[in-house]
């Protein structure tokens, strides 16, 4: 309650200072609204705190989706990789672009309401903002291709995390910057690709860029949304002497790398816990990083107290992981027969179910494409298959490749079918892991001599949308495509699932059967996080399109589906609706 009053005061002060509002009739977003968004709103990166990506809108149904047509489209910043997760409030789309740009667009027409561009847009007090899209001089690590996945909204502000390791607050009415807090030194390699989430009045954000050797580690922070003040910082790597510190053998802090927190988490107001997952250890292979230890807290789910950052429980999916098999992806919170659960799938294509109150393992369901390890479905214990732990310089044939069967392209849940819909690409790799230098600034992922190969069960296809029953792990249906399914999934109360592929298709599937009920072509690859929302009472489906997107969108289709071509630019968003 206190925070909401503060938001109102801030807004009143801004209006008194003469800043003209460009989003008309904006209503402040309360934490209650985040808990239960209006049906036409999309207020968290996966719509709701539980990251189910399910829209309760049902104007577009299995019966009428065949009449879906383009309402409008809008070109986006083309200077970086495009993996946007837009938000919608009161019919206005808040669209994150590459390189820190955010725009507010009228959801019905696509008309621009405001643009926030770092280095160009002013702060609310009229002073200039910092162009933080470049690299500081002398930096020893890059910031990637300017990816800005998700943003958050609370009160009158949007919150974004930047490629130069800062967090910014932007006035949702005007696009002016309210504050910017430098969280870490980008010169040490730190950067953000995932934005914050809001949990119990705190901005929670996970950092990336932790593969290079330095005397610090990756972390997750809590920030005050009104002042930008850092409230807590929780390391994602156990330091020497800390609990779990012995899981890195005798490696000094300098050589404990990885556990990047590069995908936004979820939040459960009931347990008041934030669920955030971590990436694999770096360098990728045990033989290269110099320890066969579990390497806590890599490839784990962390349950954090949003007020203190305390790790209430953790669960490590793949102790001592050694093939770049990331488990960092989205945490989907579903109650199964009264059991509050957390569902997670990493690159191996194993669906994990945990009790999200206790962190206790419930079930593991291997979709059956990987050849690296065996998992005990009753205990979750993994054991590497003979010959599958890489030695330096010795080739192994592994499925999946380091690209994974699963990626940042998040799965969605439908309460209608009680199924998860998972974007998959099928691939394998002949991989030879090689050395890095164990010196300050060295490290990294380690080099891999890589030959991409088709998966033996793929029939030559690279893409699959998979429907999985959450109780049994049974595969309800799978739909194959020649190119990777290159977007997150979206489910709706109209009985539909939406996703798109690298070959410029966007599909509407029947959630029950997997039948494609509607499809269209796009200017380049579908890529990002599709959403559904209302503007002026009418339902829309928005599909981001673009390039970048790492190996699913570059080397895999280029090498394994060479006959399929797509433009190498064209970042944009395409919005569909039924005819009036």
């Amino acid at each position: 309650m206190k925070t909401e009053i503060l938001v109102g005061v801030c807004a009143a002060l801004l209006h008194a200072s003469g800043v003209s509002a460009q989003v008309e009739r904006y209503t402040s977003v309360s934490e209650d609204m985040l808990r239960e968004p209006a049906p036409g709103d999309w207020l968290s990166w996966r719509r709701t705190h539980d990251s189910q990506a399910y829209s309760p809108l049902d104007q577009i149904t299995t019966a009428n989706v065949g009449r879906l047509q383009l309402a409008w489209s809008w070109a986006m910043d083309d200077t970086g990789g495009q993996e946007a997760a837009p938000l919608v409030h009161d019919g206005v789309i808040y669209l994150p672009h590459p390189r820190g740009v955010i725009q507010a667009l009228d959801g019905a027409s696509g008309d621009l309401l405001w643009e926030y561009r770092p280095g160009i847009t002013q702060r609310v007090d009229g002073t200039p903002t910092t162009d933080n899209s470049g690299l500081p001089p002398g930096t020893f690590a890059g910031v990637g291709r300017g990816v800005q996945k998700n943003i958050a909204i609370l009160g009158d502000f949007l919150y974004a995390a930047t490629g130069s390791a800062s967090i910014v607050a932007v006035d949702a009415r005007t696009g002016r910057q309210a504050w910017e807090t430098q969280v870490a030194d980008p010169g040490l390699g730190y950067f953000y690709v995932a934005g914050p989430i809001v949990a119990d009045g705190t901005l929670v954000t996970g950092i990336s860029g932790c593969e290079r050797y330095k005397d610090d580690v990756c972390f997750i922070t809590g920030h005050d949304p009104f002042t930008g003040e850092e409230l807590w910082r929780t390391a994602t790597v156990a330091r020497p002497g800390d609990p779990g510190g012995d899981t890195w053998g005798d490696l000094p802090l300098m050589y404990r790398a990885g556990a990047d927190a590069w995908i936004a988490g979820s939040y459960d107001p009931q347990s008041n816990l934030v669920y955030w997952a971590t990436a694999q250890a770096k360098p990728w292979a045990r033989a290269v990083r110099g320890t066969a230890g579990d390497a806590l807290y890599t490839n784990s789910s962390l349950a954090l107290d949003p007020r203190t950052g305390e790790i209430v429980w953790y669960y490590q999916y793949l102790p001592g992981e050694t093939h770049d098999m990331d488990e960092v992806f989205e945490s989907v919170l579903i109650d199964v027969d009264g059991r509050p659960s957390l569902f997670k799938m990493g690159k191996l294509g194993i669906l994990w179910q945990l009790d999200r109150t206790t962190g206790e393992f419930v079930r593991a369901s291997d979709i059956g494409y990987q050849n690296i390890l065996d998992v005990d479905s009753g205990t979750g214990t993994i054991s590497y298959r003979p010959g599958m732990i890489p030695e330096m310089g010795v080739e192994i044939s592994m499925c999946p490749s380091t690209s994974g069967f699963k990626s940042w392209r998040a799965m969605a849940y439908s309460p209608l079918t009680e199924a998860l819909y998972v974007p998959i690409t099928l691939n394998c790799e002949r991989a030879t892991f090689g050395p890095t230098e164990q010196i300050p600034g060295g490290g990294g992922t380690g080099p891999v001599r890589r030959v991409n190969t088709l998966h033996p069960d793929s029939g030559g296809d690279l893409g699959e949308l998979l429907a999985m029953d959450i109780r049994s792990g049974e595969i309800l249906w799978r739909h194959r495509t020649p190119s990777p399914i290159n977007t997150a999934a979206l489910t709706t109360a109209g009985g539909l699932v939406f996703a798109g592929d690298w070959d410029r298709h966007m599909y509407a599937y029947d959630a029950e059967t997997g039948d494609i009920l509607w499809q269209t072509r796009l200017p380049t690859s579908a890529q990002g996080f599709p959403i559904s929302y209302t503007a002026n009472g009418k339902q829309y489906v928005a599909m981001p399109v673009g390039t970048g997107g790492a190996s699913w969108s570059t080397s895999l289709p280029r090498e394994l589906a060479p006959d399929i071509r797509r433009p190498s630019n064209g970042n944009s968003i395409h919005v569909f609706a039924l005819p009036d």
Partner: protein
Amino acid sequence: MPRVRASLLLLSLQAAVSCAGGAAVVESGDTVPAAAPSSVRDGVYTQAQAARGAAEYATACSSCHSADLRGNSNAPSLVGVSFLFLWEGKSLDELFTSIRTLMPTNAPGSLSEPAYLRILAYILEANGFPAGGTDLTADPELLARILITGG
């Protein structure tokens, strides 16, 4: 996830690219030293090329491969033992073709051919391979004879 390995498809693409560049090669043919270089240790680029290449690298490449060329999660290291692990024994032609046709990943082929050569020169310099008196050119036969060799 390294993506520098050129596939067979790309090698054949490279043949087409090389043919297109043939005219320039003939013009610069008499600058090729009598004893053609066989290794990146033979002074195959000029300091001036590498100096300009450094600036072009900073603009086009460093946001993924890092300002110090050591890479990040999605981009392999271009220097030191990690670089040699991927490229030792291969020819400069293979490396040049990979850069020329695949990089930068969000705009492949968007730089000029001389710019790609200068960036390659900068990568060679950063690995400690010596400069020489003759500019590196895009002559595919010349590049194919120059092997990437370790220290």
